[in-house]
Structures are given as structure tokens and as C-alpha cells.
């Protein structure tokens, strides 16, 4: 049975802190504005998600990082009534957990976006023969069952990075049929890399309604992503941004302090970004994200924080150790990269020099190596960085503050 579009509903504003209270969805007919136009109601800023006409707070919840139902409840009760999940998150238990939270809530009080993917070649991104229409349709049914819902608002074609896959007919057929059957309201597509190509393909397909894309101040190709987003938004697609903090994901001992608020605001300066899904895991983070809903002004100090953070990006060695077995001189490359980071990321020459002194390095580090066999997983030019940083040994300590 085909489900009709949501009709007119009451809307209640959230509390001043964005906590407590209960927010009903606003009727899209109340705001027959142009796509992407912003509206401020109370302390929350909303935008329209393209032709879906869903009016969303500019920050909503990406649930993938948490199994804590209390956080999801806080989000829903606090005005973030759009939740993003995926079938692969925690092997389906993320969808089930959300399903438990949604029990007893009015269906028109929230929006759910979820997603699924099929096997593809990890190098080319092209689907393999296992990727059939039938397999994808089963995935959609599995999601609905886990969530305990008759339909979801957006079903995304998950993690695409090449045009050919974005236009892959078996999956598109499955999504279109599911839409006709009332199982999904809108078709989406998600991308973490090669984003412009995927976004353009989504527009060209004339099938997708929403794009979920990585978008942040650190992307080297942010301008291209911006242009692709603009084209998609002008074509009526809803744009949801993710990975907007753009932080280092290197693990426990390289955690950066990133100005998350500034990062969100940076992305939201783009009016073609209709909402950001924030993957908060604490109530503090949730409250910080709520505060952004109130004021999107990007301060000069915040811009400066982002500029510095972008500069530091690409300086964190993940410590995977692959280089240790590749370097024929058996140099302590992770430590050398750390020294490099101290200088070029933190301007702390003293710390870098102390580290170099502690490493018992030979006088001529690269010896007779005419080329460097090290292939860094971060794609760094390791030999260049090594040559650069060891020059610090030539500076007398008294020259360094």
C-alpha cells in the first residue's frame, strides 16, 4: 500500500536548552519555501531537505557510534527528530536498538534514514555478481524488521565511490520498487570518497532524492564537493553532510582537540547543506551540538581554529608500523614522524629535538638508499619528511626556546 505524504501537524518548540519537551514534526506545507531556505523557530534553525520537503534542524543525529538508547531518546526529545543509521552498524543491532527506542512514539514524530550495501570490489568500487536486486530488497526488509517500522523515510544506497556503482541498476530497481511499495519514502545515496563524482551521478540519475556526503574544512577537494553539492541542491536533491568535524581518526593516543562547533558552522555556512548528522556519544556533545542550532555565525576565532586544525591535518602518524618492516635502514620512522608533527603541527621545536636526541640515530639516516622503499598508508613522502626533520639536529639546543 502506498503511504501518502505526511499531512499538516502540530509543532511544539523545544525548551530553551533544547532539552526536555517533545517536538512534533512541522508540516512542510507550512513552509512552501524554496529548497534549502532557512527558518529560525525559537532557538532552532531549520532547513528544507530538498524535494523531500522535510523540515529538519540543521544538526541531527548520526547514531552509528553509540549503543546507548538514552542518547537517542535525548536527541528525539530534544528536537533532533531525524536519526541516521545503517544495517551494517554493529551488525544490525544499531537498527534494533533504535527500534526499541521508537516503540510507543508517534510515527509522525520522527524521521529515519538507514542504508545498506552489497559486496563490491574494494579496489574499484564496482559491484560483484553477488550484488543482485533480490539481495538488496532483502536488505530493505531486514532493516524494516529491525527498526520495527512499516516504512523508513530515506533508504540510502550505502558507501558508493564510483559513478558506475551509483547508477547500478539492480540496486536502483530495488529502491524504486520499495518506494512504490511504500517501504521507503525517498531514495538516498551516501559517499565518503570521490564525492563529486558520486554526487554528479546522483543528479544525472534523476532517481535519487537525497545525498549524504562527507564534507568538511579539511578536505583538499572541498571546493569541488561544494560545487557538486550546489548542483545537486539546485536539482532539488536534499543534502545531508557527515564527517564535518573532519578530525583525525587515528586512535587513542593521537586525539586532537577539534573545535567541533566551528566545524559544524563551517559546513552550515553553505546554504546547500540542509542538515549535518552529528555522531555524538555523550550528553555533553549532544548539548554542544544543540547550541549550534541556535546560532550559525562563524566567528573569526573559530575560523582561525579551523585554519590551524587544517594545517595540522596530515601530520598524525597512525602508528600502524608498516614502515618498520619496509625501511632497509630500520629507522624508527613513527618516532621521526612524531618529531615532524611536533615542529610543523605544534611549533614545538624543543620537544622535537628532545625526541630526536633520544632515538640514537645514525649520522646519515638514509645511508646509500637511492630510493625509499617505504609505502606509508597515509601516502606521505616519508623520506622527504625524514630528511627535513633531522636537520633539527644541527641546531644547537640554546637556539631553541
Amino acid at each position: 500500500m502506498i503511504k501518502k505524504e505526511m499531512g499538516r501537524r502540530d509543532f511544539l518548540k523545544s525548551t530553551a536548552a533544547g532539552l526536555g519537551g517533545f517536538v512534533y514534526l512541522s508540516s512542510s506545507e507550512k513552509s512552501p519555501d524554496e529548497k534549502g531556505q532557512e527558518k529560525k523557530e525559537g532557538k532552532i534553525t531549520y532547513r528544507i531537505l530538498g524535494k523531500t520537503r522535510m523540515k529538519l534542524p540543521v544538526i541531527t543525529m548520526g547514531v552509528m557510534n553509540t549503543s546507548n538508547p538514552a542518547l537517542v531518546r535525548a536527541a528525539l526529545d530534544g528536537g533532533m527528530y531525524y536519526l541516521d543509521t545503517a544495517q551494517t552498524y554493529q551488525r544490525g543491532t544499531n537498527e534494533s536498538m533504535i527500534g526499541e527506542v521508537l516503540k510507543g512514539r508517534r510515527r509522525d514524530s520522527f524521521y529515519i534514514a538507514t542504508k545498506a550495501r552489497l559486496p563490491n570490489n574494494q579496489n574499484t568500487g564496482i559491484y560483484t555478481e553477488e550484488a543482485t536486486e533480490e539481495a538488496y530488497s532483502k536488505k530493505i526488509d531486514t532493516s524494516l524488521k529491525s527498526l520495527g517500522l512499516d516504512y523508513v523515510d530515506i533508504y540510502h544506497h550505502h558507501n558508493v565511490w564510483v559513478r558506475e556503482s551509483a547508477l547500478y541498476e539492480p540496486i536502483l530497481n530495488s529502491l524504486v520498487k520499495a518506494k512504490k511499495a511504500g517501504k521507503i519514502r525517498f531514495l538516498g545515496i551516501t559517499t565518503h570518497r570521490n564525492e563529486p563524482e558520486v554526487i554528479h551521478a546522483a543528479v544525472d540519475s534523476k532517481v535519487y532524492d537525497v545525498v549524504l556526503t562527507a564534507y568538511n574544512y579539511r578536505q583538499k577537494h572541498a571546493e569541488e564537493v561544494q560545487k557538486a553539492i550546489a548542483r545537486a541542491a539546485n536539482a532539488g536533491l536534499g543534502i545531508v553532510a557527515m564527517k564535518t568535524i573532519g578530525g583525525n581518526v587515528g586512535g587513542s593516543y593521537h586525539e586532537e582537540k577539534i573545535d567541533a562547533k566551528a566545524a559544524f558552522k563551517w559546513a552550515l555556512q553553505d546554504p546547500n547543506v540542509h542538515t549535518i548528522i552529528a555522531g555524538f556519544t555523550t550528553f555533553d556533545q549532544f548539548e554542544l551540538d544543540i547550541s549550534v542550532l541556535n546560532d550559525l555565525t562563524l566567528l573569526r576565532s573559530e575560523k582561525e581554529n579551523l585554519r590551524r586544525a587544517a594545517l595540522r591535518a596530515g601530520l598524525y602518524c597512525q602508528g600502524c608500523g608498516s614502515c618498520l618492516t619496509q625501511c632497509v635502514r630500520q629507522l624508527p620512522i613513527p618516532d621521526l614522524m612524531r618529531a615532524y608533527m611536533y615542529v610543523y603541527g605544534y611549533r614545538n621545536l624543543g620537544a622535537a629535538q628532545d625526541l630526536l636526541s633520544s632515538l640514537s640515530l645514525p649520522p646519515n639516516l638514509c645511508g646509500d638508499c637511492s630510493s625509499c622503499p617505504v609505502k606509508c598508508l597515509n601516502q606521505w613522502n616519508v623520506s622527504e619528511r625524514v630528511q627535513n626533520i633531522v636537520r633539527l639536529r644541527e641546531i644547537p639546543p640554546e637556539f631553541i626556546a
Partner: protein
Amino acid sequence: MKGPKAKKICRTLIIFSWTLAAALLGGVPVLEGKTFVFPEISGWRMPEKPQLFSPTTLYEYINGAADLYLSYEFQDLNVAEYRNEREAAVTVEIYRHKSPTQAFGIYSQERLANANFLDIGTQGYREPMVLNFLAGPYYVKINGYNTGVEDEKIMLIFGRKVEEMLGEKNSLPEILSSFPAEGKKKNTEKFISKNFLGYSFFHSGFTADYERSGKKFKIFVIQGNGQEDCRSMMEKYLQQTDPQVKKASEGAYRLKDHYHGEVDLFWKAKFIWGILDLEDPALRSEYLKQFENIVKK
């Protein structure tokens, strides 16, 4: 060295008076990437070279799910695909985490309580075309395609080979055996590595699901680094509901948590036990007594 060269280097290097966080200057361990050689399996070939993913590139393989793995101190992922003559395919993914507890954490997030469990590695389970197991700091995920009627046999062959190759046979985290037995639902234990209960001042914790007399609830334990660590966590938590609280002392507490409702806690030494979502005061008191006895041991 003095002279123009040094001055040139100094001029090009801008000197600031920044101080690095202790964590950056401290003894950060340099991890050694473990060379992993995928086993040869009779009748199967590897059409392409295995792949290695680091914390930076993990998202390329598992996209948004990567963040959760990273929160469990993910170190690296080795992936290999095998195919046989009938073009059945098996993918072997070996996630290495910093410790067996961290590996258990991510494993527990994805484990279903009613799974078909096997005696493999530390613990494992099987579904059609899936075999996942824990082995020390490794979380192994094996997926099959087109394996047909021999699926179970194929999955087990691969599982045993990888288990043998890894050579790790730990136990599940010891603290799990301390959870009260009555009402505990088997295989529901989870380890949350940070921001336990959604609070940044709680670092990590273990939970288990319970059911008694038709009531479903959770019991949890937070293991601090010592008594003072627990005191600090307790005080911050108590201050959530009553900012006037200055000091906490060992013993039982009942809190009205804005997000979790009524929560009972028992703190002793380096353990904080707690109960969530249980509206029966008598049952709560019963478990609180049990926590007291657990900590005395």
C-alpha cells in the same frame, strides 16, 4: 653549529611557546605492525593480494562503521578474499585491537545473544555464510558467498585455519564472571570503551542484560584505576543531580539521572556497580547487597 645556516633554519622555523599535552610528549608506544600471512587452504586461491587498512583508511572498507571500531583502539585490519573452482568466495577480515578487552568490546557490540555459538578462539558464532570469533586482541569476521550446501563446512575450515594461525586463546574478561548470576541473560555482556552511559567522566564499563519476574533491566560495573579514580567519577556523577555535592564516600547511592531515570549505585574500592531501568525497589536492594558481597571477595 652556528652561522648563517643555523640562522636560516631558525628563520624558517617559527618558534612559539606552545606546550604539548602530556599525552603527546609522554611515552607513546610505537606499535609494530604485525605481519600477517593468510593461510593456504586446499582448493582455494587468492585472486588478489590481501589488503591492509590502518585507522586512517579503515573507513574506506567499512565506511561509517569505522568510528566505532576506532573507539575500541583499532590498530589494523588485514583482509583477504579466497575463491574456489566453483567461484564460491570467502572473505577473511582480521581486525587487530590494542588489547583483548578492546577486541571483546567491539565483538560484544556486534554479537547477538541468541547466536549459534561455537568453541572457537575465545568465543565465536556462526550464521549462514558468516563466522565471527574473538581471539585475544583479534576480532575475526569470515563471510562467504555461493558456498551452497557446504557452507558450514567451508566456514569452519577457514575459521579453524585462521584460529590456528593467530594462535591466541584468551578468556573473556575476568570481570564478567562477577556479574550476579540470577536473571542474567547469557551472552548479553558488553564492554563500552569510553563515555560510559553517555558521560565523558566515566571512562569505560561493562554491562549485562537481565530479566526477572518479567522485568528487564541492566546491571553494569565500572572498574576504575583505583579508589581515587572511582571517587572522582562518583563525585562528578553525583554533581549531575546535585551540584552541591562535594565529596563522595564508598557505599550505596540512589540517583535521579536526567537521562537514565532512577539509578542505583554501589561503590567500593575500584569498582562502581549499578542498576538501570529497574523499577522494583526490593529487587534493586537485593542486587545492591549482592554487589557488596562481590566487592568483598
